[in-house]
Structure formats: C-alpha cells, structure tokens
C-alpha cells in the first residue's frame, strides 16, 4: 500500500512544522469582519496564494487550506450552502499549486472546522447529518488535491468522530485537533487525556492528533503534557495561538512575539510533539522564528509545567481539568433520582 505524503514525511523527519494563522493573515489583507474567508478562494485567489506561499517561505512543511468554515452549516449563513464542493475544491487546488511549485515536499492539508451546531440531545445535530456535511466538504478538498484532511478546533467528541467517519467515506487520510479553551478542557468538557483515549478507539483513527487554538501558548503546552502522559504512539500535533488577542487601531493583534513562539515550538518538540505550528495570531515572522529555533536548539528533556510558565507565561486556569474529582460536584448531594 502506498503511503500518503504526510506519513512519508513523518517517517523521514523527527518533527515537521505546520503553518500559522489563516484568519489573522487574511484580515491584514483586508478581509472584512463577518465576511466568510472561504469566498476569497474564488474572489481573491491571489490573496489566498500569498497566504499559502508566505507559510511555505517561512519554512512550513505543512499548510492548511482556507476552508475552515467550508461546511454547509456555516456557509448557509452567507446563503452559500450550495457552494461547499466548489469553495473547498478551489481552496485546495490553490494550495496544491503553491506546494507543487515550492521545490520541496510540502503537505497540503484540507482544513475542516466545526459545524457550529450542537449534537442531540442538547442540540439538533445528528450523527448522520454531521457525517454528510463533513463528507461533502472532504470530497471537495479531495477533488482539489489535498494530501490529507485536517480536522481542527473541535470541542465535541461526537463531532470529531463524525469527521473521522467522513474521512473514511472519502477514502482520505486525516489528522484531527481539538480546542481546549475552557478551564483546560474543550468547551464541551473533554480533557486532554480523554481525547487521547478516544482517538485510539475510533474505527478510522487519524495519522496524528493534538490541540489547536485554545488560550495562548502556555495552556496549549499544558494540554500537550496531558497527551504525552497517556503515552500514545500516534504522532502529536500542537498548533497554539500566538498569545492573547489585543485590539489596536482597528486591528486584532496577538501579543505573542516571534521569540516567544520560538520558545513554544522548542518546548512542544521536547514534549514529544511531531507536528508543530501556530494558530490565531501566528504570522510568517513567527513561523520563521519557530523554524529557526527548532533547527538551532538541541533537544531537551520533557518540559515541566514550571518550565512552560517560566518561558511562555502563566496558565489561564489553575488546573488542566484532568484528575479524579474535578468533574464531580463538590457540594453534598441529596438522593439521586433516575
């Protein structure tokens, strides 16, 4: 069986560098807040080429396509639910073009973000509909020539599993990360260790799994330590934000410096992460600093939480949400009823 491009690259290298922000970069090119970035795949293809090329030139081995919100549920906001296949195909094809022209092996990863809907019984989304939506998007990305599907910023384990099933239907290799932004857990309450365990139980497990976005680089590294503690043999992914968003003169600016992101990249590698990138606020200059730090810093020991806070700043919450008692109500309960 012929190996996919990402697995081949992973087999030949200790670590790979992924890309940085999509939204933050597109804003700087004039994207209006509230407008869907995916429209630019067809309306301003040169901007999307620049986005991809900047990541490649800064040293990324993998970059994600501009298709994060390219599912029917999200495109429906802009009455574009009929353009799923097209917008994903074009966003992917532009990526293929840039990767093939780079003169080295660069993996094009088809970004698949959450639907934004909540699963039954709390919400209305069913497993069947979620799989259908992800499958439709996956086929578009496949048509455009991505090497791998890249599921990201997930909160709900059900949605992650639906994306896994859709990848199988499309016959595509995939990677998948979740966003741990709520007291160390995902918004839906999943811990890092629970995710590591869930991934191994999937019928179609990803090539690599990990965390993206969330709250700054420190918190993301704490999540990574949670994965590492489980000791999964599957490659880990870290794509952290370049600090915390600040607002300056009409622009969103993330306060993490290129130097800080360089420190973060080295810490992630020392924690055993194989695929290291950034998320919101991570610009080409951050990526260049990360690449340089990764190449020039010898591998160190597994970082401790103290190492992380000393280099990257304080965590946003006291605990990472794992542990025996954090999920249980503290107060005394009366009789439980069925």
């Amino acid at each position, binding site marked *: 069986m012929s190996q996919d491009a990402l697995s081949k690259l992973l087999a030949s290298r200790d670590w790979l560098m992924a890309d940085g922000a999509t939204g933050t970069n597109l804003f700087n090119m004039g994207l209006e807040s509230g407008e869907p970035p995916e429209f630019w795949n067809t309306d301003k293809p040169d901007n999307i080429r620049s986005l991809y090329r900047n990541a490649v030139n800064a040293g990324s081995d993998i970059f994600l396509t501009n298709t994060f919100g390219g599912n029917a549920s999200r495109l429906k906001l802009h009455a574009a639910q009929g353009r799923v296949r097209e917008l994903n195909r074009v966003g992917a094809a532009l990526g293929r073009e840039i990767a093939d022209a780079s003169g080295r092996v660069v993996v094009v990863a088809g970004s698949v973000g959450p639907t934004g809907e909540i699963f039954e019984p709390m919400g209305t989304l069913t497993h069947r509909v979620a799989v259908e939506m992800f499958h439709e998007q996956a086929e578009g990305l496949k048509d455009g020539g991505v090497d791998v599907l890249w599921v990201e910023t997930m909160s709900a384990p059900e949605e992650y599993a639906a994306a896994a099933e859709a990848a199988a239907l499309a016959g595509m290799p995939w990677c998948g990360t979740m966003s741990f932004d*709520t007291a160390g857990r995902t918004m839906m*309450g999943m811990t890092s260790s629970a995710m590591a365990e869930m991934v191994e139980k999937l019928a179609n497990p990803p090539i690599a799994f990990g965390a993206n976005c969330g709250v700054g680089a420190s918190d993301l590294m704490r999540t990574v330590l949670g994965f590492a503690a489980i000791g999964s043999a599957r490659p880990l992914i870290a794509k952290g934000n370049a600090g915390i*968003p600040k607002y*300056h003169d*009409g622009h969103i600016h993330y306060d993490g410096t290129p130097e800080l992101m360089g420190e973060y990249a080295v810490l992630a590698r020392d924690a055993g992460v194989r695929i290291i990138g950034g998320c919101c606020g991570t610009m080409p200059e951050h990526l260049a600093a990360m690449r340089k730090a990764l190449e020039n810093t010898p591998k160190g020991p597994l970082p401790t939480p103290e190492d992380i806070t000393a280099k990257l700043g304080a965590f946003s919450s006291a605990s990472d949400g794992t542990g025996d008692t954090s999920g249980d109500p503290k*107060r005394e309960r*009366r009789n439980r009823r*069925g």
Partner: protein
Amino acid sequence: MADDEIILADLSDDELVMQMHDDLYDGLKEEIEEGVNLLISRGWTPYDTLTKALVAGMTIVGADFRDGILFVPEVLLAANAMKGGMFILKPLLIATGAPRMGKMVIGTVKGDIHDIGKNLVGMMMEGAGFEVRDLGINNSVEKYLAALEEEKPDILGMSALLTTTMPYMKVVIDTMKEKGMREDYIVLVGGAPLNEEFSKAIGADAYCRDAAVAVETAKALVLRKHNQLTA
C-alpha cells in the same frame, strides 16, 4: 429505582426547594415542571417560585460552570430544565406584575454561527429574572439597532466565537455612537477569543467571561444605571 424514588408531593416546602435545586443541577425538566406546579398549588407566588427555586438553583449551576466543574453539556441540560419551569411561570409572573430585573437584547454577530454561549447567557439571564429577546446568530448592525429601537432594553449583549468575527462588535458599537444612542444602553460582550482589554478597546461596558459572570455583571450595571437615573 422504585425503592428510593422521591415523591415530590410528599416533601415539605423547604425539602422540595432543595430537591428542585438538585433536579436543576441534573437537568431533569419534568421534575422541575412538577416542582413548579406543586409550589404554585401550595400558594407560593410565581415570583418566589422563580427566585427561590429556579434562580437559586441556576446560581449553583452557574457557579460550578464558572469554576470549571460543570461544562457546556451539563449546563445546557440544566438550562433546558429551567426553561420548562419558566414556561409555566412566565404568564403567571406577567399576570401578577412581579418585579422585573430588566430587559436584554442578545445576539451573535454577523458571520458567526456559534450560539452556545449566547444561548447560555440568555437562559441564565431569564433565570435571573431578566426579560430576554434573542436575535439568534449572524446579526448585522442594522438588525441589532432595529431590535434596540423596538425593545428599548437596558442591555445589549453581543457574542462572537471567532477571531474573524469579533471585530464586528466594534462596528456595532461605533454605529451606536454615531447615532448618539450608545449611552442609552449597557453593552456586554462575550465569547471564547475575547478578553477584558478587548472589550474596553472596542468601547463595551464589560466583558463577561461566562454566563454566570454575565448575570452578575448585568445585575450590577443595571442597578448602577437605575441609581444614576434617580440621583
């Protein structure tokens, strides 16, 4: 379960209220509806039923959500149970002219589909006795302004979950300033990528980290606003 089944009707008022707090915590909608009906049938005012049974119960849920003990799925179930109780109480509250905390218009900004946080805030605000008009997701500045004109609320709440949509909050606030109506409202903002500094920079009155904080902030700011008006 027959042996340890609790018969709500057999409980004293105090025990029933305690049980309702637990049932809210566990998201048991039918039990909450039964509890509300029982209290009303025992002569409780709709307002006391709301505040002592439901609001007090949701305050516990809110505190544990704030402290990272409960997460979104549990809170959604609790809020759904609360809604069941509110559905019974709402007409009774209006009929009895119960005191109102204030009114809020709330919505997720243009381009953003996420409404989990916004729904939680809406439900917790209702739980705290506020009247809430929910504009849903994907709201343009025009839709926000039309709702403000129509409802004349005390508070405008805006939510965004994406880096690409959060600056739109500033568009709305700037437009309110242009029209000279910014000072007529308390503007609260929230959502995962936001922070206090961002809310100040765009000219909001406060950033609310979660639904529990939103309720506390709304209560404090509405009180301050009313004091200013009477001063």
